[in-house]
């Protein structure tokens, strides 16, 4: 696939940062995939690999005033919004040093100091919350915007549809990012979403709906930049639909017998990192050695995060009854 989007010039620093962020997500997820297979990581883990351009393309337009809400497939959003990868890894390992002190796990990583309102175990749990954070930003006049990331599955939940309506009715600085990776668990979005595109639904809620090649960082960045600028200026919400596929199963352990070869195709032909690298080296904005240096740096960071997580202390009995207002 060729990149068709005319893009605004990004600085060398911005390009390197975007690449490093996408690579960090990929490396993090590939590593969690490998470590999960050893049996050391407990619980349910849903990986974001393949979808990096969405989290990074959107979040590279955000700053400290802004809030995002995520999904069960939340690691990428966390990293893109600046959550510490060592704390994230420790959380996934259930350690005391984790983002949530081991109480949340992969599906509930959050860091409110970074404007990251949490991964979420409930499909469609995020969009209503984002209406609230957007309302707070509007009432306080912070200029902040709020972004709800949700999947094609959640695009069929009442909470999501009600939130889009409310955001338009209240003219909120809210962005709805439908990450259509093709499957809600095993069920194809071509079957479960009755309209041709999730973005088509925007018309019913009085907001613009934009279909975006979710494998293309530049396309995502451009579309998100426009929507976010409009929201900041009081122009109300936008629905963006990212079209791509996930590289792993619904969760780790999913045999994926419902799929047929699209991952191999995506990895070979559409991959966001490969395309990003090809483009910036062709234009001469970055060199292969810039990218190699970023890869090495990221690999070392993720290695360290895993080593630290494995060595970190487990929670103790005293931790069971902290962060409650009453004890029974």
């Amino acid at each position, binding site marked *: 696939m060729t990149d068709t989007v005319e893009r605004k010039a990004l600085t060398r620093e911005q390009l390197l940062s975007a690449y490093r962020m996408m690579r960090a997500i990929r490396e993090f997820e590939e590593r969690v995939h490998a470590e999960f297979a050893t049996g050391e990581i*407990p*619980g*349910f883990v849903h990986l974001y690999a393949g979808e990096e351009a969405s989290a990074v393309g959107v979040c590279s337009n955000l700053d400290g005033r802004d809030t995002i809400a995520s999904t069960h497939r939340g690691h990428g959003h966390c990293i893109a919004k600046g959550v510490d990868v060592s704390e994230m890894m420790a959380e996934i390992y*259930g*350690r005391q040093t984790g983002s*949530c002190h*081991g*109480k*949340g*796990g*992969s*599906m*509930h990583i959050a860091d409110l100091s970074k404007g990251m309102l949490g991964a*979420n*175990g*409930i*499909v*469609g749990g995020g969009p209503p919350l984002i209406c609230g954070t957007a309302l707070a930003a509007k009432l306080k006049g912070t200029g902040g915007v709020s972004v709800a990331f949700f999947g094609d*599955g*959640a695009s*069929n*939940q*009442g*909470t999501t549809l009600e939130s889009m309506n409310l955001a338009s009715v209240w003219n909120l600085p809210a962005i709805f990012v439908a990450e259509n990776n093709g*499957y*809600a*668990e*095993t*069920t*194809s*979005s*071509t*079957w*479960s*979403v009755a309209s041709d595109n999730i973005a088509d639904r925007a018309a019913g809620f009085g907001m613009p709906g934009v279909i975006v090649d979710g494998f293309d960082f530049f396309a995502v960045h451009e579309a998100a930049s426009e929507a976010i600028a409009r929201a900041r200026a009081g122009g109300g919400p936008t629905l963006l639909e990212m079209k791509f596929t996930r590289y792993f199963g619904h969760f780790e352990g999913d*045999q*994926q*017998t*419902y*799929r*047929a*070869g*699209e991952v191999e195709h995506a990895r070979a032909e559409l991959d966001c990192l490969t395309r990003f690298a090809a483009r910036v080296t062709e234009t001469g904005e970055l060199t292969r050695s810039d990218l190699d240096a970023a890869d090495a740096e990221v690999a070392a960071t993720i290695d360290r995060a895993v080593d630290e997580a494995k060595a970190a202390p*487990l*929670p*103790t*009995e005293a*931790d*069971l*009854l902290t962060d*409650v207002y*009453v*004890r*029974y």
Partner: protein
Amino acid sequence: MARTITYREAINEALAQEMERDESVIIMGEDNAGGEGSPGEMDAWGGVLGVTKGLYHKFPGRVLDTPISESAFIGAAIGAATAGMRPVAELMFVDFMGVCFDQIYNQAAKFRYMFGGKAVTPVVIRTMYGAGLRAAAQHSQCLYPLFTHVPGLKVVLPATPYDAKGLMTQAIRDNDPVIFFEHKALYDLAGPVPEESYALPFGEANVVREGGDVTIVALGRMVHTSLEAAEQLAAAGVECEVVDLRTTSPLDEDTVLESVENTGRLVVVDEASPRCNIATDISAQVAQQAFGALKAAIEMVAPPHTPVPFSPTLEDLYIPSAAQIADAARKTMKGGKH
């Protein structure tokens, strides 16, 4: 002699036999087959933990996958039940009740009474519950007390493969809405289950172990933890009677009261959060109706009043243990109405 099959297989078999027997029985839920619209295998999952696997091909057109829209399809199951079908809908994890509870507690639960006895709503809502899989705060809750609280719902919690099959068969044949709780840590539990179809009546507790010293009332997975505690206590000469409630609505008070009349001591074990749970309800019933029989204060064993923690270290501390149950029983043996 019955074969040995798992809790998961027992539920699947009850569903298959009732679908065979009655064409109005249909199944619906997220990925209950799996693979709808996808390029690969259909019936890819048979439910997220494989309980409905195989039914899609066995009963063409009667296993319906759904979009992730619990309000719509749980409500549709309830509506279909009022129109002559016997739907078995899966609310995957009971934690997701928040997305669709109106259809259950304001609609299904109310029809029979509110419409003056003119409606029947033979719907079954299957749902997974319970801690132990490191599934964290939004995929591990018990929540059956919330359903037990609502008049018009029947609430069923099988502890064994035998009960799972018999109670599922009854649930499907029953004319009232039934919430059928499946503990996800019990799916691989094997036990004897007859091949032929059979129904176990609701509101009949099961005395799973007899003993004259202490009554332990439990439900779901906690039945097994209580039996473990009873074994430990027997080694020390304390004989416990373990009562498995099997259904919390209707509730078999008589079996509980009869046992307490015999032993004079009661421990109630519940995996649900400690306030307003089944343990507090049973304790209140016994205090009210068998106060004179009690030789010691009633003991309750439940998790702490917190969300379910993720870290295995914390989750293991959270779940009521056999040691805690044994301690509670020993406390009642010391006597004294403290």
